[in-house]
């Protein structure tokens, strides 16, 4: 009941480790976000008791990958340990190599793949191979925007090809394609699902936990598209035990990211 009480007492989630595995910074084309810079997300995190968030720079996913990852690095540097980076490769630039972001401690902890806004590039496209090889070698998580069944299948193919990297299915565990995501999680031990979606009905997180087990579900907010409160509250008020909620809020991700 601890987390239900925190919601209704309108208090931050202090005393529990909260790691948001699915965040964004930067302006997003075509939709109006709330405040989306490092300062504003850390303000929200402080207020809500979120320990850390893993982010990619949204405009960099679409356009200049180098600029985008450099901005992510700047924000990670400014908020060390609170904002963690996903390096985002771009399949259309042969010179794209994101390994430099992991060469020293620049705050990067994983890779972000968002093929559907990169010319509808399949998530398992060979042009992403350098990033997958890097992740496989360093046992890094790779967060896929995987909403549709075919996106989930392609992310699963990466899990099959690279058994030492960890695939996070972003969104898909709670969309209409959730059965697909569950099947993939059951087939591959290195696949996880996050909670980043605004439109999932009540009961969906409990359903996912029932299908793939508590250890494979990770808190993701999709902040700054959404307010992180939305999904935090849904987890806090879910029909799960406090211990299960703590695993989703951050303990699973802490272990996954080796933090």
């Amino acid at each position, binding site marked *: 009941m601890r987390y239900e009480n925190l919601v209704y007492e309108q208090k931050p989630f202090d005393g529990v480790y909260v790691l948001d595995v699915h965040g964004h910074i930067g302006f997003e084309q075509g939709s109006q*976000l*709330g405040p989306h810079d490092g300062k504003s997300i850390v303000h929200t995190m402080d207020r809500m008791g979120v320990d850390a968030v893993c982010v990619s720079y949204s405009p960099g996913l679409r356009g200049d990958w180098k600029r985008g990852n450099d901005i992510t690095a700047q924000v990670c540097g400014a908020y060390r340990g609170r904002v963690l980076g996903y390096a985002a490769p771009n399949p259309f630039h042969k010179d794209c190599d994101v390994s430099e972001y992991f060469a020293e401690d620049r705050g990067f902890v994983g890779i972000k793949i968002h093929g559907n806004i990169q010319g509808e590039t399949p998530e398992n496209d060979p042009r992403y191979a350098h990033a997958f090889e890097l992740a496989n070698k360093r046992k890094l998580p790779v967060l896929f925007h995987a909403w549709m069944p075919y996106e989930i299948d392609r992310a699963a193919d990466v899990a099959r090809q690279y058994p030492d990297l960890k695939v996070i299915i972003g969104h898909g565990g709670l969309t209409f394609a959730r059965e697909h995501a569950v099947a993939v999680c059951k087939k591959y031990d290195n696949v996880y699902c996050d909670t980043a979606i605004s439109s999932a009905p009540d009961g969906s997180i409990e359903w996912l936990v029932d299908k793939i087990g508590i250890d494979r579900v990770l808190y993701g907010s999709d902040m700054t*598209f959404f307010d992180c409160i939305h999904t935090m509250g*849904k987890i806090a008020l879910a029909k799960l035990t406090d211990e299960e909620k703590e695993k989703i809020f951050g303990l699973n991700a802490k272990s996954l990211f080796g933090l």
Partner: protein
Amino acid sequence: MRFIDASCRLGMPAAPGEGMPWKTEEILELMDRCHIEQAFAYHIVARDGEVEDGNGLLMEEIKKDSRLQPQWCAMPATFREFLHADALGDAMKKNGVKTLRIAPKGFAHSAMPYAMKELMDFAAQSRVPVFFDYGEAVGDALYDLCSAYPDVKFVVTNTAYALNRFLGPVLDACPNLYVGTGNYVPHQGLETFCRYYSADRLIFNTNLPFGSATAAVSLVCLANISKEEKEKIACGNMERLLSEVRL
């Protein structure tokens, strides 16, 4: 804090996912868990086009619990497909109905005055708040609808995360537009809205069963706004709109 859910749905969805709480008993259980004192509900059969039959089914369904209040779906009376305004007013009064929901796109009719004048004149005169999903009046159509009927209190629901640039100018131009908080999820969305437009124009709702009541109450409880603003959003604004209804 107590909540009044200004709009949710009852009845069997076409494709309920396993675990989705859509049965009335499940909705009531969620209301208990989420401290929702009352819920204004419309019926999926009405929303799917059998308007009068669906409104009738709703009246039967809400007999299960006094916490459920009716929200009737409505359309223009053209071709006698729906009640004329006088008959609608009488039926609403008889059944204790104080809110309406329209769906111009879903019901395939124009939302402009030549098509909806009688129904909207009734809403203006009776001060019955009129709800609709954003998808029913997208972009410029939202302005057209709200500006055509300045005396009608409109509550737009199901707005999601990417609509502030559409909503903002209409909120500026049309003081009769209110926003339902169910799935209004932009980062720091409620605090930003309160700063620009005041908490007076936010109405708590869940969009159950497709929306999440747990997320909806959390967004209000944990928003970075004052206690007074939260109470207005959670129940005060809806109570104010209801108190103005004259049937």
